[in-house]
């Protein structure tokens, strides 16, 4: 077991669980800015639970992951977690839905044969999982609900923004970070 620290919080990291990176920490910062007191929040693909950990004392947070090791890890970090595939076992509506998706373009040869693959693999274009999310997320949002997500320039940020708009969302860019060979953008998509 490994201990990671961000801001003032320590959290545990188990094997075969996504080791939080710049994308995770950008999402923590965005969630702290955007989630308001008492909201109902759903986090998809929580991994270690790092993002939910920072807002669980502010909001009513539930997290899901398909990776059994991630579920165990998030629970150890104090998160209420459900093992399911994106929205498949979830029927409620939420004020905020948070998703740090697997967004890397991934060929057959690059695919890992472990649960960790689900944290990275966005299909050949990188867009498979985020597009599927965008097509379904509206059914799980309250009328003034919002989505916080992060996407890489390797995936094409503008295409993802356009996909949100095609499904009736407005999109704001909350932050952009350039790291060595890509840019990461945190997006807020909300119903007008």
């Amino acid at each position, binding site marked *: 077991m490994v201990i990671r620290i961000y801001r003032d919080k320590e959290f545990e990291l188990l094997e075969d669980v996504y080791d939080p990176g710049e994308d995770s920490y950008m999402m923590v910062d965005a969630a702290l800015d955007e989630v308001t007191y008492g909201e109902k929040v759903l986090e998809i693909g929580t991994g270690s639970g790092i993002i939910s950990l920072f807002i669980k004392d502010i909001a009513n947070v539930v997290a899901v992951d398909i990776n059994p090791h991630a579920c165990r890890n998030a629970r150890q970090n104090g998160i209420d977690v*459900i*093992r*399911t595939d994106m929205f498949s*076992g979830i029927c409620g509506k939420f004020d905020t839905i948070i998703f740090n998706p697997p967004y890397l373009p991934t060929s057959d040869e690059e695919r890992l044969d472990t649960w960790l693959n689900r944290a990275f693999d966005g299909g050949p274009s990188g867009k498979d999982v985020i597009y599927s999310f965008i097509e379904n997320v509206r059914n799980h949002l309250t009328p003034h609900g919002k989505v916080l997500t992060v996407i890489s320039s390797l995936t094409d940020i503008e295409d993802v923004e356009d996909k949100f708009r095609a499904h009736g969302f407005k999109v704001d860019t909350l932050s952009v970070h350039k790291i060595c060979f890509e840019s990461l953008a945190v997006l807020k998509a909300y119903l007008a």
Partner: protein
Amino acid sequence: MKKDLMEILCCPVCKGDLELEVVRENDVEVLDGALYCKKCNERYPIEDGIPNLLPPELR
């Protein structure tokens, strides 16, 4: 899992309501048990406090 999570959970196959079956619990939550879908006649296990709502073929 805390019992109030029942409000947001559904069967991943038919999206119908689930019945909670408790085997072991503490003051806070259910530790072991199952979520039963009457319509599909399927039980989704709760183990060590984590409900597993993957369809049987994906578990």
